[in-house]
Protein backbone atom coordinates (compact mmCIF):
# COMPACT_ATOMS: atom_id res chain seq x y z
CA UNK A 1 0.00 0.00 0.00
CA UNK A 2 1.10 3.58 -0.49
CA UNK A 3 2.60 5.32 2.46
CA UNK A 4 0.64 8.49 1.78
CA UNK A 5 -2.60 6.54 1.83
CA UNK A 6 -4.80 7.80 4.57
CA UNK A 7 -5.91 5.38 7.19
CA UNK A 8 -8.94 3.80 5.65
CA UNK A 9 -10.40 1.05 7.69
CA UNK A 10 -11.27 -2.23 6.10
CA UNK A 11 -13.83 -3.83 8.34
CA UNK A 12 -13.93 -7.62 8.80
CA UNK A 13 -17.28 -9.32 8.70
CA UNK A 14 -18.24 -10.36 12.20
CA UNK A 15 -18.49 -14.09 12.69
CA UNK A 16 -16.35 -15.55 9.95
CA UNK A 17 -12.80 -14.59 9.07
CA UNK A 18 -13.40 -13.29 5.55
CA UNK A 19 -13.71 -9.60 4.76
CA UNK A 20 -16.59 -8.23 2.71
CA UNK A 21 -15.17 -6.11 -0.06
CA UNK A 22 -18.36 -5.03 -1.78
CA UNK A 23 -21.85 -5.01 -0.45
CA UNK A 24 -24.58 -3.92 -2.82
CA UNK A 25 -28.14 -3.88 -1.55
CA UNK A 26 -31.21 -3.29 -3.72
CA UNK A 27 -29.33 -0.89 -5.93
CA UNK A 28 -31.41 1.06 -8.40
CA UNK A 29 -30.57 3.52 -11.14
CA UNK A 30 -32.89 5.08 -13.66
CA UNK A 31 -32.16 7.27 -16.63
CA UNK A 32 -34.48 9.62 -18.39
CA UNK A 33 -34.78 8.87 -22.04
CA UNK A 34 -36.24 11.46 -24.37
CA UNK A 35 -38.22 10.40 -27.35
CA UNK A 36 -39.69 12.49 -30.13
CA UNK A 37 -43.46 12.58 -29.77
CA UNK A 38 -45.45 11.03 -32.57
CA UNK A 39 -47.21 14.33 -33.10
CA UNK A 40 -43.86 15.95 -33.70
CA UNK A 41 -44.26 18.47 -30.89
CA UNK A 42 -41.86 18.37 -27.98
CA UNK A 43 -40.30 15.31 -26.47
CA UNK A 44 -41.63 12.59 -24.31
CA UNK A 45 -39.63 11.78 -21.21
CA UNK A 46 -39.52 8.22 -20.12
CA UNK A 47 -37.70 6.86 -17.10
CA UNK A 48 -35.85 3.67 -17.87
CA UNK A 49 -34.39 1.48 -15.16
CA UNK A 50 -30.77 0.69 -15.97
CA UNK A 51 -30.38 -1.21 -12.69
CA UNK A 52 -33.48 -2.62 -11.14
CA UNK A 53 -32.75 -3.65 -7.57
CA UNK A 54 -29.38 -5.40 -7.57
CA UNK A 55 -28.14 -7.19 -4.46
CA UNK A 56 -24.84 -9.05 -4.06
CA UNK A 57 -21.67 -9.18 -1.99
CA UNK A 58 -18.07 -9.81 -2.87
CA UNK A 59 -15.50 -11.23 -0.57
CA UNK A 60 -12.03 -9.69 -0.37
CA UNK A 61 -9.73 -11.22 -2.96
CA UNK A 62 -12.56 -12.57 -5.05
CA UNK A 63 -12.92 -12.10 -8.78
CA UNK A 64 -16.48 -11.75 -9.95
CA UNK A 65 -17.36 -11.62 -13.63
CA UNK A 66 -20.53 -9.90 -14.78
CA UNK A 67 -22.00 -11.01 -18.06
CA UNK A 68 -24.81 -9.23 -19.83
CA UNK A 69 -25.90 -8.03 -23.19
CA UNK A 70 -25.43 -4.53 -24.44
CA UNK A 71 -27.46 -2.19 -22.32
CA UNK A 72 -28.01 -4.67 -19.50
CA UNK A 73 -26.47 -2.27 -16.97
CA UNK A 74 -22.87 -3.46 -16.51
CA UNK A 75 -21.24 -0.09 -16.98
CA UNK A 76 -23.90 1.57 -14.88
CA UNK A 77 -23.01 -0.78 -12.03
CA UNK A 78 -19.31 0.00 -12.42
CA UNK A 79 -20.03 3.74 -12.37
CA UNK A 80 -22.13 3.43 -9.24
CA UNK A 81 -19.33 1.53 -7.52
CA UNK A 82 -16.79 4.15 -8.54
CA UNK A 83 -18.91 7.11 -7.30
CA UNK A 84 -19.45 8.47 -10.82
CA UNK A 85 -23.19 8.04 -10.59
CA UNK A 86 -25.58 8.66 -7.73
CA UNK A 87 -28.09 5.89 -7.20
CA UNK A 88 -31.86 6.24 -7.10
CA UNK A 89 -32.18 3.76 -4.28
CA UNK A 90 -30.37 1.05 -2.38
CA UNK A 91 -26.82 1.22 -1.14
CA UNK A 92 -23.24 0.45 -2.07
CA UNK A 93 -20.59 -0.27 0.54
CA UNK A 94 -16.97 -0.76 -0.34
CA UNK A 95 -15.00 -2.27 2.52
CA UNK A 96 -17.63 -0.92 4.86
CA UNK A 97 -17.64 2.61 3.45
CA UNK A 98 -20.81 4.01 1.98
CA UNK A 99 -20.18 5.07 -1.62
CA UNK A 100 -22.28 8.18 -1.23
CA UNK A 101 -21.51 9.46 2.27
CA UNK A 102 -17.89 8.36 2.40
CA UNK A 103 -16.98 8.85 -1.21
CA UNK A 104 -13.50 10.05 -0.45
CA UNK A 105 -12.59 6.83 1.36
CA UNK A 106 -14.19 4.78 -1.40
CA UNK A 107 -12.31 6.63 -4.12
CA UNK A 108 -9.05 5.95 -2.38
CA UNK A 109 -9.76 2.19 -2.50
CA UNK A 110 -11.09 1.84 -6.03
CA UNK A 111 -9.71 2.16 -9.52
CA UNK A 112 -11.04 1.26 -12.88
CA UNK A 113 -10.22 0.27 -16.43
CA UNK A 114 -12.90 0.89 -19.03
CA UNK A 115 -13.37 -0.29 -22.56
CA UNK A 116 -11.95 2.96 -23.84
CA UNK A 117 -8.43 3.80 -22.77
CA UNK A 118 -9.24 7.51 -22.08
CA UNK A 119 -6.05 9.53 -21.97
CA UNK A 120 -4.83 12.95 -22.95
CA UNK A 121 -3.86 11.89 -26.44
CA UNK A 122 -1.02 14.34 -27.02
CA UNK A 123 0.67 13.45 -23.75
CA UNK A 124 2.94 10.45 -23.25
CA UNK A 125 2.10 7.41 -21.16
CA UNK A 126 4.46 8.56 -18.43
CA UNK A 127 2.91 12.03 -18.32
CA UNK A 128 -0.60 10.64 -18.22
CA UNK A 129 0.29 8.33 -15.36
CA UNK A 130 2.19 11.01 -13.42
CA UNK A 131 -0.60 13.51 -13.12
CA UNK A 132 -3.17 10.80 -12.48
CA UNK A 133 -1.09 9.46 -9.59
CA UNK A 134 -0.92 12.94 -8.05
CA UNK A 135 -4.70 12.95 -7.81
CA UNK A 136 -4.26 10.00 -5.47
CA UNK A 137 -1.72 11.85 -3.37
CA UNK A 138 1.41 10.24 -4.81
CA UNK A 139 4.38 12.60 -4.82
CA UNK A 140 6.98 12.65 -7.63
CA UNK A 141 9.42 10.82 -5.36
CA UNK A 142 6.99 7.91 -5.27
CA UNK A 143 6.18 7.80 -8.96
CA UNK A 144 9.60 8.42 -10.47
CA UNK A 145 10.64 4.77 -10.32
CA UNK A 146 7.24 3.24 -9.96
CA UNK A 147 5.75 4.42 -13.26
CA UNK A 148 8.46 2.92 -15.51
CA UNK A 149 8.39 -0.19 -13.32
CA UNK A 150 4.67 -0.68 -13.62
CA UNK A 151 4.68 0.06 -17.36
CA UNK A 152 7.36 -2.55 -17.77
CA UNK A 153 5.27 -5.06 -15.85
CA UNK A 154 2.27 -4.60 -18.13
CA UNK A 155 4.56 -5.14 -21.11
CA UNK A 156 4.73 -1.58 -22.34
CA UNK A 157 7.63 -1.17 -24.79
CA UNK A 158 10.38 0.78 -23.08
CA UNK A 159 11.38 2.76 -26.17
CA UNK A 160 7.90 4.28 -26.45
CA UNK A 161 7.80 5.91 -23.03
CA UNK A 162 8.01 9.39 -24.57
CA UNK A 163 5.54 8.81 -27.44
CA UNK A 164 2.21 10.53 -27.29
CA UNK A 165 -0.72 8.22 -26.57
CA UNK A 166 -2.35 8.82 -29.96
CA UNK A 167 0.53 7.01 -31.65
CA UNK A 168 0.13 3.85 -29.60
CA UNK A 169 -1.96 0.88 -30.65
CA UNK A 170 -5.17 0.15 -28.82
CA UNK A 171 -3.65 -2.85 -27.14
CA UNK A 172 -0.77 -0.79 -25.85
CA UNK A 173 -3.11 1.97 -24.71
CA UNK A 174 -5.15 -0.56 -22.79
CA UNK A 175 -1.99 -1.75 -21.04
CA UNK A 176 -1.32 1.83 -19.99
CA UNK A 177 -4.87 2.00 -18.67
CA UNK A 178 -4.18 -1.08 -16.57
CA UNK A 179 -0.95 0.46 -15.36
CA UNK A 180 -2.80 3.63 -14.39
CA UNK A 181 -5.30 1.63 -12.36
CA UNK A 182 -2.59 -0.37 -10.62
CA UNK A 183 -0.39 2.58 -9.85
CA UNK A 184 -2.69 3.66 -7.05
CA UNK A 185 -2.74 0.15 -5.50
CA UNK A 186 -6.52 -0.22 -5.49
CA UNK A 187 -8.02 -2.91 -3.28
CA UNK A 188 -11.05 -3.02 -5.56
CA UNK A 189 -10.38 -3.09 -9.26
CA UNK A 190 -13.29 -2.47 -11.61
CA UNK A 191 -12.67 -3.77 -15.11
CA UNK A 192 -15.30 -2.80 -17.66
CA UNK A 193 -14.64 -4.83 -20.80
CA UNK A 194 -10.87 -4.41 -20.54
CA UNK A 195 -10.16 -6.74 -23.46
CA UNK A 196 -12.93 -5.77 -25.87
CA UNK A 197 -11.49 -4.86 -29.23
CA UNK A 198 -8.03 -6.23 -28.55
CA UNK A 199 -6.27 -8.70 -30.84
CA UNK A 200 -5.90 -12.25 -29.49
CA UNK A 201 -2.36 -11.76 -28.29
CA UNK A 202 -3.01 -8.47 -26.49
CA UNK A 203 -6.10 -10.02 -25.01
CA UNK A 204 -4.14 -12.92 -23.58
CA UNK A 205 -1.49 -10.58 -22.23
CA UNK A 206 -4.06 -8.44 -20.49
CA UNK A 207 -5.83 -11.50 -19.08
CA UNK A 208 -2.54 -12.94 -17.86
CA UNK A 209 -1.83 -9.67 -16.18
CA UNK A 210 -5.21 -9.58 -14.44
CA UNK A 211 -4.43 -13.01 -13.04
CA UNK A 212 -1.10 -11.74 -11.80
CA UNK A 213 -2.59 -8.71 -10.08
CA UNK A 214 -5.09 -10.87 -8.28
CA UNK A 215 -2.38 -13.06 -6.91
CA UNK A 216 0.23 -10.45 -6.10
CA UNK A 217 -2.00 -7.61 -4.90
CA UNK A 218 -4.74 -9.57 -3.19
CA UNK A 219 -7.10 -7.26 -5.07
CA UNK A 220 -10.81 -7.82 -5.39
CA UNK A 221 -11.81 -7.67 -9.04
CA UNK A 222 -15.15 -6.98 -10.66
CA UNK A 223 -14.87 -7.87 -14.32
CA UNK A 224 -17.58 -6.94 -16.82
CA UNK A 225 -17.11 -8.77 -20.07
CA UNK A 226 -18.72 -10.14 -23.20
CA UNK A 227 -16.06 -12.82 -23.41
CA UNK A 228 -17.45 -15.92 -21.78
CA UNK A 229 -14.17 -17.81 -21.84
CA UNK A 230 -12.49 -14.88 -20.15
CA UNK A 231 -15.14 -14.87 -17.46
CA UNK A 232 -14.83 -18.59 -16.92
CA UNK A 233 -11.06 -18.68 -16.62
CA UNK A 234 -10.62 -15.54 -14.54
CA UNK A 235 -13.55 -15.45 -12.19
CA UNK A 236 -14.60 -17.54 -9.24
CA UNK A 237 -18.22 -16.58 -9.62
CA UNK A 238 -20.23 -15.35 -12.55
CA UNK A 239 -23.15 -12.98 -12.39
CA UNK A 240 -25.61 -12.54 -15.22
CA UNK A 241 -27.23 -9.15 -15.65
CA UNK A 242 -30.32 -8.98 -17.76
CA UNK A 243 -32.21 -5.75 -18.32
CA UNK A 244 -30.95 -4.33 -15.05
CA UNK A 245 -31.58 -7.42 -12.94
CA UNK A 246 -29.01 -9.81 -11.57
CA UNK A 247 -30.67 -13.06 -12.60
CA UNK A 248 -27.90 -15.45 -11.58
CA UNK A 249 -24.77 -15.38 -9.48
CA UNK A 250 -22.79 -18.58 -9.02
CA UNK A 251 -19.59 -20.38 -10.04
CA UNK A 252 -19.54 -21.30 -13.74
CA UNK A 253 -19.97 -25.02 -13.04
CA UNK A 254 -23.02 -24.39 -10.93
CA UNK A 255 -24.55 -22.23 -13.63
CA UNK A 256 -24.00 -24.96 -16.20
CA UNK A 257 -25.53 -27.52 -13.87
CA UNK A 258 -28.46 -25.28 -13.05
CA UNK A 259 -29.39 -24.78 -16.69
CA UNK A 260 -28.31 -28.28 -17.67
CA UNK A 261 -25.91 -27.06 -20.32
CA UNK A 262 -22.47 -28.08 -21.52
CA UNK A 263 -20.99 -24.63 -21.92
CA UNK A 264 -21.23 -21.31 -20.16
CA UNK A 265 -22.45 -19.77 -23.39
CA UNK A 266 -25.46 -22.09 -23.47
CA UNK A 267 -26.10 -21.38 -19.83
CA UNK A 268 -25.98 -17.66 -20.55
CA UNK A 269 -28.54 -17.96 -23.31
CA UNK A 270 -30.72 -20.21 -21.21
CA UNK A 271 -30.60 -17.74 -18.35
CA UNK A 272 -31.35 -14.69 -20.44
CA UNK A 273 -33.99 -16.59 -22.39
CA UNK A 274 -32.57 -15.54 -25.70
CA UNK A 275 -31.13 -17.46 -28.58
CA UNK A 276 -28.21 -16.31 -30.65
CA UNK A 277 -30.55 -14.83 -33.24
CA UNK A 278 -32.20 -12.49 -30.72
CA UNK A 279 -28.85 -11.29 -29.54
CA UNK A 280 -27.76 -7.88 -30.67
CA UNK A 281 -31.21 -6.54 -31.43
CA UNK A 282 -31.41 -4.59 -28.27
CA UNK A 283 -28.55 -2.21 -28.59
CA UNK A 284 -29.32 0.81 -26.49
CA UNK A 285 -25.97 2.51 -26.48
Amino acid at each position, binding site marked *: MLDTAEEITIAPVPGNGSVTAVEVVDLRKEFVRRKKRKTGFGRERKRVAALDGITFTMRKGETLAILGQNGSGKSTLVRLLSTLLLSDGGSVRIFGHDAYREHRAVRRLVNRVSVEAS*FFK*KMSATENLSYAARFY*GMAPSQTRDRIPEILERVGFPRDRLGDSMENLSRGTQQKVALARALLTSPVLLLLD*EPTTGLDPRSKLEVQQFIREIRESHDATVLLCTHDLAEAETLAERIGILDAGRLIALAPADELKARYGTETLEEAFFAATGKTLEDEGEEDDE
Partner: protein
Amino acid sequence: MKGAASTMRAELIGLAGVVERNVYLTKRYFLWDVAFFLWTVANTLTIVFIAKGFEATGATLDVDRATTSLLIGAVIWAYLGIIFEFLTETVAWERWEGTIEYTFMAPLSRAMHLAGQGVFAIIYGLARAALLFAVVAFFFDLSLPNANFLAALLVVAVASISFIGIGMMTSVMPLISPEKGMQLGFIAQGVLLVVSGVYYPVEVLPQWMQWIATISPATYALEGARAAIMEGAGVTSMWEHVWPLIIIGVVSVPLGLWVFSRGERYAKHHGKLKRSG
Protein backbone atom coordinates in the same frame (compact mmCIF):
# COMPACT_ATOMS: atom_id res chain seq x y z
CA MET B 1 -4.45 14.75 13.71
CA LYS B 2 -1.98 12.74 11.68
CA GLY B 3 -4.84 11.79 9.41
CA ALA B 4 -5.70 15.43 8.74
CA ALA B 5 -2.07 16.27 7.95
CA SER B 6 -1.73 13.41 5.48
CA THR B 7 -5.03 14.30 3.85
CA MET B 8 -3.83 17.88 3.44
CA ARG B 9 -0.58 16.66 1.96
CA ALA B 10 -2.40 14.40 -0.49
CA GLU B 11 -4.65 17.31 -1.48
CA LEU B 12 -1.71 19.61 -2.16
CA ILE B 13 0.02 16.93 -4.21
CA GLY B 14 -3.22 16.62 -6.17
CA LEU B 15 -3.33 20.38 -6.73
CA ALA B 16 0.25 20.23 -8.00
CA GLY B 17 -0.85 17.38 -10.27
CA VAL B 18 -3.41 19.61 -11.96
CA VAL B 19 -0.73 22.23 -12.55
CA GLU B 20 1.67 19.53 -13.78
CA ARG B 21 -0.88 18.27 -16.29
CA ASN B 22 -1.40 21.77 -17.64
CA VAL B 23 2.33 22.23 -18.01
CA TYR B 24 2.48 19.04 -20.14
CA LEU B 25 -0.43 20.21 -22.24
CA THR B 26 1.06 23.66 -22.73
CA LYS B 27 4.29 22.05 -23.89
CA ARG B 28 2.45 19.79 -26.33
CA TYR B 29 0.26 22.54 -27.71
CA PHE B 30 2.92 25.25 -27.63
CA LEU B 31 2.56 26.27 -31.27
CA TRP B 32 -1.17 26.71 -30.85
CA ASP B 33 -0.53 28.96 -27.91
CA VAL B 34 1.89 31.02 -29.99
CA ALA B 35 -0.67 31.33 -32.79
CA PHE B 36 -3.38 32.33 -30.35
CA PHE B 37 -1.04 34.87 -28.79
CA LEU B 38 -0.39 36.46 -32.19
CA TRP B 39 -4.12 36.72 -32.73
CA THR B 40 -4.45 38.44 -29.36
CA VAL B 41 -1.67 40.88 -30.27
CA ALA B 42 -3.45 41.79 -33.51
CA ASN B 43 -6.72 42.17 -31.67
CA THR B 44 -5.14 44.38 -29.04
CA LEU B 45 -3.50 46.56 -31.68
CA THR B 46 -6.83 47.22 -33.38
CA ILE B 47 -8.20 48.60 -30.12
CA VAL B 48 -5.18 50.55 -29.07
CA PHE B 49 -4.96 52.26 -32.48
CA ILE B 50 -8.30 53.90 -31.72
CA ALA B 51 -6.53 56.69 -29.80
CA LYS B 52 -4.29 57.48 -32.76
CA GLY B 53 -7.35 57.37 -34.98
CA PHE B 54 -9.08 60.05 -32.93
CA GLU B 55 -6.04 62.26 -33.03
CA ALA B 56 -5.93 61.94 -36.83
CA THR B 57 -9.54 63.13 -37.09
CA GLY B 58 -8.58 66.33 -35.29
CA ALA B 59 -9.75 65.53 -31.79
CA THR B 60 -7.57 66.85 -29.06
CA LEU B 61 -6.45 64.29 -26.57
CA ASP B 62 -3.34 63.09 -24.86
CA VAL B 63 -2.62 60.25 -27.26
CA ASP B 64 -0.05 58.46 -25.11
CA ARG B 65 -2.38 58.53 -22.13
CA ALA B 66 -5.36 57.33 -24.10
CA THR B 67 -3.25 54.65 -25.76
CA THR B 68 -2.01 53.38 -22.41
CA SER B 69 -5.50 53.37 -20.96
CA LEU B 70 -6.86 51.37 -23.89
CA LEU B 71 -3.90 49.01 -23.74
CA ILE B 72 -4.56 48.25 -20.08
CA GLY B 73 -8.20 47.55 -20.91
CA ALA B 74 -7.31 45.26 -23.80
CA VAL B 75 -4.71 43.34 -21.79
CA ILE B 76 -7.15 42.74 -18.96
CA TRP B 77 -9.79 41.66 -21.45
CA ALA B 78 -7.37 39.09 -22.88
CA TYR B 79 -6.33 38.00 -19.39
CA LEU B 80 -9.88 37.40 -18.30
CA GLY B 81 -10.47 35.40 -21.46
CA ILE B 82 -7.59 33.08 -20.56
CA ILE B 83 -8.80 32.61 -16.98
CA PHE B 84 -12.33 31.67 -18.04
CA GLU B 85 -11.04 29.48 -20.83
CA PHE B 86 -8.88 27.44 -18.47
CA LEU B 87 -11.63 27.09 -15.90
CA THR B 88 -14.19 26.07 -18.49
CA GLU B 89 -11.70 23.59 -19.89
CA THR B 90 -11.55 21.90 -16.51
CA VAL B 91 -14.54 19.97 -17.75
CA ALA B 92 -14.78 20.60 -21.48
CA TRP B 93 -11.31 19.42 -22.45
CA GLU B 94 -11.45 16.35 -20.25
CA ARG B 95 -14.78 15.43 -21.68
CA TRP B 96 -13.35 15.68 -25.14
CA GLU B 97 -10.34 13.50 -24.26
CA GLY B 98 -12.51 11.08 -22.32
CA THR B 99 -10.51 11.41 -19.09
CA ILE B 100 -13.26 13.15 -17.17
CA GLU B 101 -14.52 10.07 -15.36
CA TYR B 102 -11.03 9.20 -14.19
CA THR B 103 -10.48 12.66 -12.80
CA PHE B 104 -13.86 12.76 -11.08
CA MET B 105 -13.42 9.35 -9.45
CA ALA B 106 -10.05 10.28 -7.95
CA PRO B 107 -9.96 11.13 -4.24
CA LEU B 108 -8.78 14.69 -4.91
CA SER B 109 -11.40 17.12 -3.63
CA ARG B 110 -13.15 19.31 -6.16
CA ALA B 111 -11.98 22.45 -4.36
CA MET B 112 -8.32 21.52 -4.81
CA HIS B 113 -8.92 20.30 -8.34
CA LEU B 114 -10.42 23.65 -9.34
CA ALA B 115 -7.82 25.54 -7.33
CA GLY B 116 -5.08 23.76 -9.27
CA GLN B 117 -6.71 24.77 -12.52
CA GLY B 118 -6.98 28.34 -11.20
CA VAL B 119 -3.37 28.53 -10.05
CA PHE B 120 -2.13 27.46 -13.45
CA ALA B 121 -4.51 29.84 -15.22
CA ILE B 122 -3.23 32.75 -13.13
CA ILE B 123 0.45 31.96 -13.66
CA TYR B 124 0.01 31.39 -17.38
CA GLY B 125 -2.39 34.30 -17.79
CA LEU B 126 -0.19 36.81 -15.95
CA ALA B 127 2.91 35.81 -17.92
CA ARG B 128 0.96 36.11 -21.16
CA ALA B 129 -0.57 39.45 -20.14
CA ALA B 130 2.85 40.87 -19.26
CA LEU B 131 4.22 39.78 -22.61
CA LEU B 132 1.22 41.19 -24.46
CA PHE B 133 1.59 44.50 -22.65
CA ALA B 134 5.31 44.67 -23.41
CA VAL B 135 4.89 43.84 -27.11
CA VAL B 136 2.15 46.40 -27.72
CA ALA B 137 3.79 49.11 -25.55
CA PHE B 138 6.97 48.60 -27.56
CA PHE B 139 5.01 48.82 -30.81
CA PHE B 140 3.56 52.19 -29.81
CA ASP B 141 6.84 53.27 -28.30
CA LEU B 142 5.08 54.11 -25.06
CA SER B 143 7.40 55.46 -22.42
CA LEU B 144 5.99 54.84 -18.98
CA PRO B 145 8.56 56.34 -16.66
CA ASN B 146 6.26 56.43 -13.61
CA ALA B 147 4.63 53.06 -14.05
CA ASN B 148 4.60 50.83 -11.02
CA PHE B 149 4.19 47.39 -12.57
CA LEU B 150 4.54 45.56 -9.29
CA ALA B 151 1.50 47.36 -7.89
CA ALA B 152 -0.46 46.64 -11.08
CA LEU B 153 0.46 42.97 -10.90
CA LEU B 154 -0.59 42.83 -7.28
CA VAL B 155 -4.04 44.23 -7.87
CA VAL B 156 -4.66 41.98 -10.88
CA ALA B 157 -3.46 38.96 -8.92
CA VAL B 158 -5.87 39.69 -6.07
CA ALA B 159 -8.71 40.26 -8.54
CA SER B 160 -7.88 36.90 -10.10
CA ILE B 161 -9.15 35.09 -7.03
CA SER B 162 -12.61 36.50 -7.72
CA PHE B 163 -12.25 35.76 -11.43
CA ILE B 164 -11.56 32.12 -10.52
CA GLY B 165 -14.69 32.05 -8.37
CA ILE B 166 -16.78 33.34 -11.28
CA GLY B 167 -14.97 30.95 -13.63
CA MET B 168 -16.03 28.02 -11.44
CA MET B 169 -19.63 29.02 -11.98
CA THR B 170 -19.24 29.26 -15.73
CA SER B 171 -17.35 25.97 -15.96
CA VAL B 172 -20.39 24.16 -14.65
CA MET B 173 -22.12 24.47 -18.03
CA PRO B 174 -20.07 21.83 -19.88
CA LEU B 175 -20.75 19.55 -16.92
CA ILE B 176 -24.50 19.57 -17.32
CA SER B 177 -24.70 20.18 -21.05
CA PRO B 178 -22.10 17.98 -22.73
CA GLU B 179 -22.41 19.36 -26.26
CA LYS B 180 -22.33 23.06 -25.61
CA GLY B 181 -21.25 25.04 -22.64
CA MET B 182 -18.11 26.98 -23.52
CA GLN B 183 -20.33 29.95 -24.33
CA LEU B 184 -21.10 30.82 -20.74
CA GLY B 185 -17.46 31.73 -20.19
CA PHE B 186 -17.60 34.21 -23.08
CA ILE B 187 -20.81 35.72 -21.73
CA ALA B 188 -19.32 36.18 -18.26
CA GLN B 189 -16.20 37.76 -19.72
CA GLY B 190 -18.23 40.15 -21.87
CA VAL B 191 -20.73 41.17 -19.21
CA LEU B 192 -18.04 41.65 -16.60
CA LEU B 193 -15.96 43.89 -18.81
CA VAL B 194 -18.73 45.96 -20.31
CA VAL B 195 -19.80 47.18 -16.88
CA SER B 196 -16.28 47.50 -15.51
CA GLY B 197 -14.97 50.32 -17.65
CA VAL B 198 -12.73 48.32 -19.87
CA TYR B 199 -12.13 51.09 -22.45
CA TYR B 200 -13.85 54.04 -20.76
CA PRO B 201 -14.49 55.34 -17.26
CA VAL B 202 -17.31 53.60 -15.38
CA GLU B 203 -18.94 57.05 -14.92
CA VAL B 204 -20.07 57.17 -18.56
CA LEU B 205 -22.28 54.11 -18.03
CA PRO B 206 -26.01 54.27 -17.18
CA GLN B 207 -26.64 54.23 -13.46
CA TRP B 208 -27.80 50.61 -13.26
CA MET B 209 -24.65 49.43 -14.99
CA GLN B 210 -22.57 51.43 -12.53
CA TRP B 211 -24.23 49.53 -9.72
CA ILE B 212 -23.19 46.25 -11.27
CA ALA B 213 -19.72 47.72 -11.71
CA THR B 214 -19.32 48.07 -7.96
CA ILE B 215 -19.63 44.32 -7.47
CA SER B 216 -17.52 43.41 -10.51
CA PRO B 217 -13.95 42.52 -9.59
CA ALA B 218 -12.80 43.70 -13.03
CA THR B 219 -13.71 47.30 -12.08
CA TYR B 220 -11.15 47.33 -9.28
CA ALA B 221 -8.57 45.48 -11.33
CA LEU B 222 -8.84 48.08 -14.10
CA GLU B 223 -8.85 51.06 -11.74
CA GLY B 224 -5.92 49.72 -9.78
CA ALA B 225 -3.90 48.79 -12.85
CA ARG B 226 -4.50 52.21 -14.42
CA ALA B 227 -3.55 54.05 -11.24
CA ALA B 228 -0.37 52.00 -10.93
CA ILE B 229 0.74 52.17 -14.55
CA MET B 230 -0.47 55.65 -15.51
CA GLU B 231 -0.10 57.57 -12.25
CA GLY B 232 2.64 55.47 -10.69
CA ALA B 233 0.55 54.63 -7.63
CA GLY B 234 2.55 52.40 -5.29
CA VAL B 235 1.84 49.04 -3.69
CA THR B 236 0.58 50.60 -0.46
CA SER B 237 -1.92 52.84 -2.24
CA MET B 238 -3.42 49.76 -3.89
CA TRP B 239 -5.32 49.05 -0.69
CA GLU B 240 -8.37 51.05 -1.80
CA HIS B 241 -8.73 48.70 -4.78
CA VAL B 242 -7.66 45.57 -2.94
CA TRP B 243 -10.12 45.56 -0.06
CA PRO B 244 -13.25 45.41 -2.21
CA LEU B 245 -11.57 42.63 -4.16
CA ILE B 246 -10.98 40.66 -0.99
CA ILE B 247 -14.64 40.93 -0.08
CA ILE B 248 -15.76 39.89 -3.58
CA GLY B 249 -13.28 37.00 -3.49
CA VAL B 250 -14.48 35.77 -0.12
CA VAL B 251 -18.00 35.60 -1.52
CA SER B 252 -17.38 34.42 -5.07
CA VAL B 253 -15.01 31.52 -4.44
CA PRO B 254 -17.26 29.60 -2.03
CA LEU B 255 -20.23 30.48 -4.24
CA GLY B 256 -18.37 29.19 -7.29
CA LEU B 257 -17.51 25.96 -5.50
CA TRP B 258 -21.08 25.54 -4.37
CA VAL B 259 -22.44 26.07 -7.88
CA PHE B 260 -19.90 23.61 -9.27
CA SER B 261 -20.74 20.96 -6.70
CA ARG B 262 -24.44 21.35 -7.49
CA GLY B 263 -23.59 20.85 -11.14
CA GLU B 264 -21.52 17.78 -10.31
CA ARG B 265 -24.40 16.30 -8.33
CA TYR B 266 -26.75 16.93 -11.21
CA ALA B 267 -24.32 15.32 -13.64
CA LYS B 268 -23.94 12.27 -11.42
CA HIS B 269 -27.67 11.91 -11.04
CA HIS B 270 -28.41 12.15 -14.73
CA GLY B 271 -25.40 10.31 -16.07
CA LYS B 272 -23.86 13.34 -17.76
CA LEU B 273 -20.27 12.58 -16.86
CA LYS B 274 -19.93 9.63 -19.11
CA ARG B 275 -18.70 9.88 -22.62
CA SER B 276 -19.26 6.37 -23.86
CA GLY B 277 -19.11 2.67 -22.93
